[in-house]
C-alpha cells in the first residue's frame, strides 16, 4: 500500500483544510490582468501555465457552470497524436509529452494510461491515408505503424476481422495512444492554478464582453462587471456565442456529439479501437466500463439530448466489431457540443478584437490538446499577443487566406 494512503487513513480528522484540492468560493475582484472565460480543461490549463511559467497570477477563470463540466466532462478521453498534417502532428505530439508528466507535476493522479490506439482500415483509401499518417508521425518521432491483419489479430484477438462484411485490411497502430481520467486533468490544473493564486469562479456566467475602440477592457457577468487587461475565450461548444458578444463571427458550426457507456465488466480490452468506416470507437475504462463514441450528429444544434438513431447505428457497428459485446449492458448515453471547423483543425491565437485571444474550434479533439493548448495560450497571453510558432498555423485568419490545415481524414470517429 502506498505511503500516502496510510497517511490519510491513520489521520482521524482527514481531510484537513490543506488537503482541499479547490478553494472555497470568493467574491469577484473589480480587476484582473487576465480573464479566462471557460473553466474547462483548456481554461484552467492556460491559467496554470500563466501562473507557473510566467508569474501571472492576477487571473480569474469565469465558469458559468462547474469546473470541467462542459466537454472536459463529456469527452471519451482519447489522447493521441496520429494526425495527418505536419502542423497537427507537431502540436499534438507536444501534448502527449506533457500529459505523461502531469500526475507528478500536479501531485494528483490523472491516471494516464498508455494503451495504444488501433484504427482500422476497411478500404484501400483508408490504407493509403493510414500509411501517410504513420509516415508523418514517425517523421516527427511518434510511435505509429501501419500493421497487417495478422498483427491486428495478435493485438486484439477478440476483434471480428470481417465486421459488417467490410474486411479489416490494415490498422494504424499508434503506440502513443492513451487515455486518462478526463475530469482529473481539469481538477489537477485547477488545483495547481488556484494554489498559485489564480481565482476560479464557478457559477459565474459572462453575459457580455466590453470592447472599447477595438480592444477588450472587461466583461459583464451575472455577479457583476470586472475590468481586465486581456481575455482568453476557451468555451468549447459555445465559441460562436461568446465571439458574438465580443462582436465578431467565427468559422464554426456547433454539433452535438454523443457517447455512451456500459456497465463495468472485468477488463478484456487494452487498446483503444476505432473504425472510421463503421463510425465507431470503443475503449474499456479503468473501471471496466466500455465507452463508445461515433460521429457527430448530422445537423447543428445547441442541445445535449440523446437520440435513439445514433445509439442504434453505433451499437450495431460495435457488435459487428466485437460480437460478444451483444451481451454487455448499456448504462448511460450523453452528449457534448462540438465546435466544428471546415478543416477539422482548431482555432488558436488572435481575434479581430485586440487583447482578446481565441481558443476554439476544438470539434471532437479538444481533450487531447489540453496541456499544449494551455501552455501555448499562456505564452501568447504573457507575450502580449506574440503568437507562438507551434500554433501559428491555427490562426483564425487562415480561413480568410484559404490556408486550411486539413485533418478531416484523421479525425472522423477517432476523436
Amino acid at each position, binding site marked *: 500500500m502506498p505511503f500516502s494512503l496510510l497517511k490519510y487513513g491513520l489521520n482521524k480528522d482527514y481531510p484537513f483544510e490543506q488537503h482541499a484540492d479547490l478553494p472555497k468560493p470568493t467574491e469577484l475582484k473589480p480587476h484582473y490582468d487576465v480573464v479566462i472565460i471557460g473553466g474547462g480543461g483548456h481554461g484552467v490549463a492556460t491559467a496554470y501555465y500563466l501562473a507557473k511559467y510566467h508569474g501571472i497570477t492576477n487571473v480569474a477563470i469565469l465558469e458559468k457552470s462547474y469546473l470541467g463540466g462542459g466537454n472536459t466532462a463529456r469527452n471519451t478521453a482519447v489522447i493521441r497524436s496520429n494526425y495527418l498534417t505536419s502542423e497537427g502532428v507537431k502540436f499534438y505530439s507536444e501534448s502527449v509529452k506533457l500529459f505523461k508528466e502531469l500526475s507528478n507535476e500536479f501531485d494528483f493522479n490523472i491516471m494516464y494510461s498508455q494503451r495504444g490506439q488501433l484504427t482500422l482500415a476497411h478500404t484501400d483509401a483508408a490504407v493509403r491515408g493510414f500509411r501517410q499518417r504513420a509516415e508523418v508521425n514517425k517523421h516527427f518521432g511518434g510511435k505509429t505503424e501501419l500493421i497487417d491483419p495478422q498483427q491486428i489479430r495478435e493485438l486484439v484477438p477478440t476483434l471480428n476481422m470481417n465486421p459488417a462484411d467490410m474486411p479489416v485490411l490494415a490498422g494504424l497502430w499508434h503506440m502513443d495512444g492513451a487515455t486518462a481520467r478526463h475530469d482529473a486533468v481539469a481538477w489537477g490544473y485547477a488545483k495547481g492554478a488556484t494554489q498559485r493564486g489564480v481565482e476560479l469562479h464557478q457559477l459565474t456566467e459572462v453575459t457580455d464582453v466590453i470592447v472599447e475602440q477595438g480592444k477588450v477592457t472587461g466583461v459583464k457577468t451575472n455577479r457583476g462587471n470586472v475590468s481586465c487587461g486581456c481575455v482568453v475565450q476557451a468555451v468549447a461548444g459555445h465559441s*460562436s*456565442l461568446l465571439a*458574438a458578444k465580443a462582436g465578431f*463571427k*467565427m*468559422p*464554426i*458550426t*456547433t454539433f452535438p456529439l454523443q457517447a455512451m457507456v456500459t456497465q463495468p465488466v472485468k477488463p478484456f480490452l487494452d487498446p483503444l479501437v476505432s473504425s472510421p468506416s463503421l463510425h465507431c470507437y470503443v475503449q474499456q475504462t479503468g473501471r471496466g466500463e466500455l465507452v463508445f463514441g461515433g460521429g457527430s450528429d*448530422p*445537423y*447543428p*444544434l*445547441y*442541445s445535449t*439530448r440523446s*437520440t*435513439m*438513431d445514433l445509439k442504434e447505428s453505433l451499437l450495431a457497428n460495435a457488435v459487428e466489431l466485437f460480437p460478444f459485446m451483444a451481451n454487455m449492458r448499456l448504462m448511460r448515453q450523453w452528449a457534448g457540443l462540438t465546435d466544428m471547423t*471546415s478543416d477539422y483543425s482548431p482555432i488558436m491565437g488572435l481575434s479581430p478584437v485586440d487583447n482578446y485571444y481565441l481558443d476554439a474550434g476544438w470539434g471532437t479533439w479538444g481533450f487531447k490538446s489540453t496541456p499544449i493548448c494551455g501552455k501555448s495560450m499562456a505564452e501568447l497571453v504573457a507575450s502580449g499577443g506574440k503568437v507562438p510558432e507551434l500554433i501559428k498555423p491555427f490562426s483564425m485568419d487562415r*480561413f*480568410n*487566406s*484559404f490556408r486550411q490545415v486539413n485533418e478531416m481524414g484523421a479525425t472522423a470517429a477517432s476523436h
Partner: protein
Amino acid sequence: MKMMNCPLNGLRNISEFVHGGEVKEMPDPNSCSDDAWAEYVFYTENGISVVTEWWLHAPSGYWFIAERHTGSDEILKTYDPSVLFNKRVEFSAPVTEGMA
C-alpha cells in the same frame, strides 16, 4: 425520433432528411472582396436562435426551407424554396481577366 414536416411528403422521421446549411446570401463572386467571400464560405452566425435552413428529403430528392430553433430543436415551419427564391438568378461576367 424527431419528426419533420416535409412540404412535399408530410410528417416523416428526421433520419430521412439531410441538413443543407443556413440559407445565406451569396455576395457577387465577381466583385466582392476576398474577405467578404471568405466570410460567405467559412463564417457562420451559429447562434442560439431560429435559423432559416436548407433541408433535403433524401428519398424524394426534394430541397426545402425550414425555420428551426437551434437551442430547442423545435421546427417552427417548413416551406418550398420558391417562397424565398422566386426568380431566375443570373451572374454577371467577371470584371477581371481570369485564367483561361
